[in-house]
């Protein structure tokens, strides 16, 4: 399959791995930002192919995971409102709020529907004028343009029965927050390829200058990720810190101007709570006043939402790269994808869920490489 097979080519991967081994002389802790990258790394076992001195830690870039609990509880309250059709991407349906998840609400009679695009939700609003159709608009900068398009379409068509519960989050502020935090271990980042396809990477240049930390904008296939690691390691070995673009087939320095303009027109920057991490100033997007008729947060008064996270969950430390899923005493025991305790287990792309799905349990797993003494040199 074109555009996939060449980026999964075992020969190319082997060449890059050889090169990584040849240039690595010191330990490196590299964080991949995106949940999609984490998923690919664990699925293809890429971290286990790297030299032992290179540690990949898993970042906060799974939008489903980091959506604040109060936003999810608010979504659930709206979904239970009479005459509401609550629409969402599939993977938000299982994310537990304080009391339930959307699948549970659907089973008890709420009209919850999976859509593949926010524009599908707009079409439902057109088709069912007596219903109030709400779309759950979460995600990073990547999903914002499509959501912006839906808002613009709804406004243009004067669909007063369409609204969006928007809770977008932004990557550069969370990278800064990780680098500022006490005890930070992250020495370099594999930057978010899809996010930068929209935003470009100018914002990352100021991060690199300020924190002297390399960022390599990286794709999602095995060869992309290994090449991203190689470029990062080369910077660390040479004492450099610049923004580099591994994902040239998807990312332009200025991103996608049309998409950016759309987002700018409909959304504005706001402070945002991140599940597992906490409040980060200016780290999110909310719907602009001009689009308030379509802002579910303004339209639906669901009262005060009181939330409670489980105290034993260490997802905050995992999202900052301080710990790995297997370091958590609850991982695979009290905390599984069926009974998630926190952010990183709730979505398939969360680090804990990815580890769990691919059998990486505490105390090792059947697919783990043999101990170092038996590994071929």
């Amino acid at each position, binding site marked *: *399959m074109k555009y*996939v097979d060449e980026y*999964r080519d*075992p020969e190319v*991967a*082997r060449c890059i791995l050889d090169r990584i081994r040849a240039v690595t002389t010191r330990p490196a802790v590299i964080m991949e930002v995106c949940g*999609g990258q984490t998923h690919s790394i*664990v*699925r*293809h*076992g*890429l971290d*286990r*192919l790297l030299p032992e001195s290179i540690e990949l830690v898993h970042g906060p870039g799974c*939008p*489903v995971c980091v959506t604040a609990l109060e936003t999810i509880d608010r979504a659930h309250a709206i979904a239970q409102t009479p005459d509401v059709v609550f629409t969402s*991407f*599939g*993977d*938000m*349906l*299982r994310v537990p709020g304080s009391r339930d998840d959307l*699948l549970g609400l659907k089973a008890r009679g709420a009209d919850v529907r*999976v859509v*593949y695009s926010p524009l599908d939700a707009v079409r439902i609003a057109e088709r069912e004028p007596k219903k109030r159709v709400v779309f759950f608009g*979460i*995600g*990073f900068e*990547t*999903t914002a343009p499509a959501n912006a398009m839906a808002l613009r379409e709804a406004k243009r068509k004067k669909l007063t029965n369409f609204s969006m519960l928007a809770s977008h989050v932004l990557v550069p502020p969370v990278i800064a927050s990780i680098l500022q935090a006490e005890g930070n271990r992250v020495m370099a980042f594999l930057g978010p390829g*899809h996010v930068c396809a929209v935003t470009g990477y100018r914002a990352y240049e100021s991060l690199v200058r300020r924190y002297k930390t390399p960022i390599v904008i990286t794709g999602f296939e*095995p060869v992309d990720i290994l090449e991203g690691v190689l470029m990062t390691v080369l910077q660390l070995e040479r004492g450099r810190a610049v923004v580099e673009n591994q994902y040239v087939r998807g990312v332009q320095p200025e991103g996608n101007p049309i998409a950016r303009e759309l987002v700018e027109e409909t959304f504005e920057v706001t402070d945002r709570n991140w599940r597992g991490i906490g409040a980060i100033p200016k780290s999110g997007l909310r719907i602009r006043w001009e689009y308030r008729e379509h802002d579910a947060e303004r339209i639906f008064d669901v009262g005060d939402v009181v939330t409670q996270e489980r105290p034993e969950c260490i997802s905050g430390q995992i999202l900052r790269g301080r710990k790995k899923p297997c370091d958590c005493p609850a991982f695979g025991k009290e905390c*599984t*994808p*069926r009974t998630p305790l926190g952010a990183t287990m709730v*979505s*398939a*792309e969360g680090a804990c869920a990815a580890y*769990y*799905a*691919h*059998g*990486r349990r505490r105390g090792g*797993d*059947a*697919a783990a*490489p043999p101990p170092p003494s038996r590994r071929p040199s």
Partner: protein
Amino acid sequence: MSSELRSDPRAAEVIGAACPLPIRERDVVVLGHGSGGRLGAELVERLILPSLANPTLAELDDQAVVELEGGRVAFTTDSFVVTPIFFPGGDIGELAVNGTINDLAVGGARPIALSLAFILEEGFPLADLRRVLASVHAAANRAGVPIVTGDTKVVGNGSGDGIFINTSGIGVVPPGIELGSARVRPGDAVLVSGPIGEHGIAVLASREGLELGGDLRSDTAPLHGLVHALLEACPAVHAMRDPTRGGIAATLVEIASRRSVGIDVDEAAVPIQSDVRGACEILGLDPWFVANEGRLIAFVPEEHAETALAALRAHPQGRRAARIGTVTREHPGVVVAHTPLGSKRVVDLPFHEPLPRIC
């Protein structure tokens, strides 16, 4: 045939019309079609019986009596609730016939007879029912397995999803054929009869109105011919499964965990059509977990693996059969995928039906 479906013997006379004329005055299922009254009789006499045309069914007795020759009886049942009922490559009727035949076939049984029970929702278009019946008839004819008994119930509007079908089937397992997951042994080769994931992706794309391009069609097909060819060439086969819901991953994980064996799978060897791969990439699904309706997985002793593979490939339904893995003593209960990159990962079941990811 249960009493709900038996006709009033005077019905045809009273109505005074010959089959298969359309049912008078109605173009949708109404509650009366499920009653013991005249409408129910009309539905059976004018629509169902003419569509399925076989003498045992036409007797309309409370039961079908079927002659069985030597061997053990295999018996299976399955219900079909697929949405949409018509999808590229098949429909609910064909699926119901093939699905039940396949459950018998992978046990080494020669299918003998099927039952067919409908649960129809009030308001379901009779034209669609006619289309489903035609498809049931064609599938049963193609497979050479008659529908010998049946039932129809009607539920009120909103209590169903148009049409549900239950089919049961009996078959005969010839002497000497011993198949079952209990016979799977370390060292067995794992074969798959063709590319995976086509049914699940075709239905999903059709249900959600996704325009994914390519030619995505369900693989629904009866497997008993392919099974017969395989067992003729290689009676030593230990077990077979048709990997329907949950895909090949669910089948392999179930056998590994229930039989306490490990299974190593070579990811690169698993045949997947590029259309299906592309759709899965776009939707964030793993084709290993996507349903199949016309594929089988066979566990074959190593020394017979080549013969079995050749037999599968010689059959029109098995041209793209492949050996995908090996049963092992290592890591009992666990399926391990070996990636083309040289790494390994554990394959485990998701807790829920896979849903497309956000990005």
